[in-house]
């Protein structure tokens, strides 16, 4: 059975001052629905670039990326934006919450792009914040929250549209051990209870140990797959 994420012979190069820098070389991989994958590798190995390609915020130079049957590498800019809003939930290393919006308003952002009514949006946001255990912090601004709480709000924002895939770039990289464990526990729960397919970039072997599959990259090549 084909995976929900199919990366086929994907290469990615960047041009800077007419010099081509090749970041990924002919990568192919399949990620099954409900799989929790960790992408590991040293800095500059191309793991974040691969994550960006899978999440549709960047396009490959060569090859195809098929998500849930759709070749996203062929989508137009605006179609890709719409696709991201319904299919992908993003978790960033530094949470990337909007500082002028409350926790509730931050979580509500992605569903402003849907046709849901205000009451329905409220229900969705409350459910998402309930899942991450922060329904008592709805009216707090990011600066009034701890790092771990901010990342939980970011996770609530990632799941509020009920996307099939969650992508996380070093989600515990800015947290202390206790908060990092809470976040990993939450991600495991999202994977097990809600069957979210998770692709997580990490340097941390402890974080990676929570994944079903660990894929190692080095200098733009996929060198090892550990199950």
């Amino acid at each position, binding site marked *: 059975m084909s995976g929900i994420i199919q990366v086929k012979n994907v290469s990615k190069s960047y041009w800077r001052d007419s010099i081509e820098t090749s970041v990924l070389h002919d990568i192919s991989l399949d990620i099954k629905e409900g799989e929790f994958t960790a992408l590991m590798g040293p800095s500059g190995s191309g793991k974040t670039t691969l994550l*960006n390609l899978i*999440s549709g*915020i*960047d396009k490959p130079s060569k090859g195809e990326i098929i998500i849930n049957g759709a070749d996203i590498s062929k989508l137009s*800019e*605006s179609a890709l*934006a*719409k696709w*991201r*809003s*319904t299919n992908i939930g*993003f978790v*960033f290393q*530094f949470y*990337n919450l*909007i*500082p*002028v*919006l409350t926790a509730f*308003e931050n979580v509500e*952002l*992605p569903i*402003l*792009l849907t046709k849901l009514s205000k009451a329905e949006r409220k229900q969705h946001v409350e459910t998402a914040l309930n899942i991450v255990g922060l329904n008592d912090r709805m009216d707090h601004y990011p600066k009034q929250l701890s790092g771990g709480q901010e990342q939980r709000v970011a996770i609530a*924002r990632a799941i509020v549209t009920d996307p099939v895939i969650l992508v996380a770039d070093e989600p515990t990289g800015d947290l202390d051990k206790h908060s990092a464990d809470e976040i990993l526990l939450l991600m495991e729960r999202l994977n097990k209870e809600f069957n979210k397919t998770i692709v997580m970039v990490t340097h941390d072997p402890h974080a990676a140990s929570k994944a079903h599959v660990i894929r190692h990259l080095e200098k733009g090549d996929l060198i090892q797959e550990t199950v």
Partner: protein
Amino acid sequence: MKIPLKYIMRNFMTRKLTTFITIAGIALVVFVFTAVLMMAFGIQKTLVSTGSDDNVMITRKAANSEISSIIGPDIQNIIRTLPHIATESNGNLIISNEPVVIINLVKNGGGVSNVTVRGVSPEIDKLRPQVKLIEGRMFNWGLRELIVGDAIAKRFPGAQLGSYIKFAGGDWKIVGIFTTNGSGFDSEIWGDAVQLQSAFNRVSTVSTVTLKLDNPENYDSFRKAFIADRRLQQYEPIIEKKYFAQQSEMLSTFIRVLGIFITLIFSIGATIGATITMYSAVANRTVEIGTLRSLGFNRISILAAFLIESLFITIAGGAVGIFLASFLQFFSISTLNFSSFSELAFSFALSPTIIVWSLIFAIAMGFIGGFLPSIRAARMNIVTALRAG
């Protein structure tokens, strides 16, 4: 536009100092812009309110002002024979044969300025009932006495009640001060037409003849009779209000064109200020832009959000500028009216049209100033923007 307004509004409030400085700059430019329009409108309003709709003024066709117009006694008599001239209860025609001359008077604080002196006929109180004496009395017919408009009394120390003005080889006593509630007549001095004619050696010629129609609707019929008389072909009848409106055009257009030109130069500075503010807003929020784009907000939403933010700043500045300019309505100033070559006092006047134009001006500055930064925000590459953190 999917990005919530509260996001835009709260960002607007986070950079208090830069936002305040930009608003102040825009407010200053809009203040000047509004003040210029108010000044031009004030002049128009003053001169338009000078005339009446039911009075007809007759001037020589070639004359472009009252001073350069000459009407001889034969023509004055022919005019009196035309139909539709209103009469008093005693049967006298309501008509004023008016010599108009310019004299020099010393202004408050020094300097000499031209002042219009108008000779009027005894029917003047019926012809221009808006004239109200606020001090003293009406001059006596046949004497060298004058009444002065209140704008003249305020601006010329020599034109006070009881004082004498020297011109045309004689001393003229000021016996009254009148007002017409801000019309151009308030900047004039009036006396007996016959006395002024003889003082200025005008024999029996006057500058203009102004008459009241028995009914304003009879103007066309009056004009038809006027034009039909070949002896009057060098003269032109015009509704008094329209005449003064035309007299205001040159000065108000000059002020408007010059003022708007200067304001446009100022506005370049204010627009650059708005651009810098918005570029710094984009630079400070690069990661936010990347985040919003990755969440699915498209380029147009980002462009609109930053453009609206810029418009908020300039509309706020515009509102402050208009509010401050509105206080100018309490001030009255004077200038030389190009058409009559004499002093004209007027007040700044605000109108809904001026408010709308001032806001459009502010919005234009916001749009131009915010456009390039907004384009930069919208064109930002998501991956590059996210890495900026």
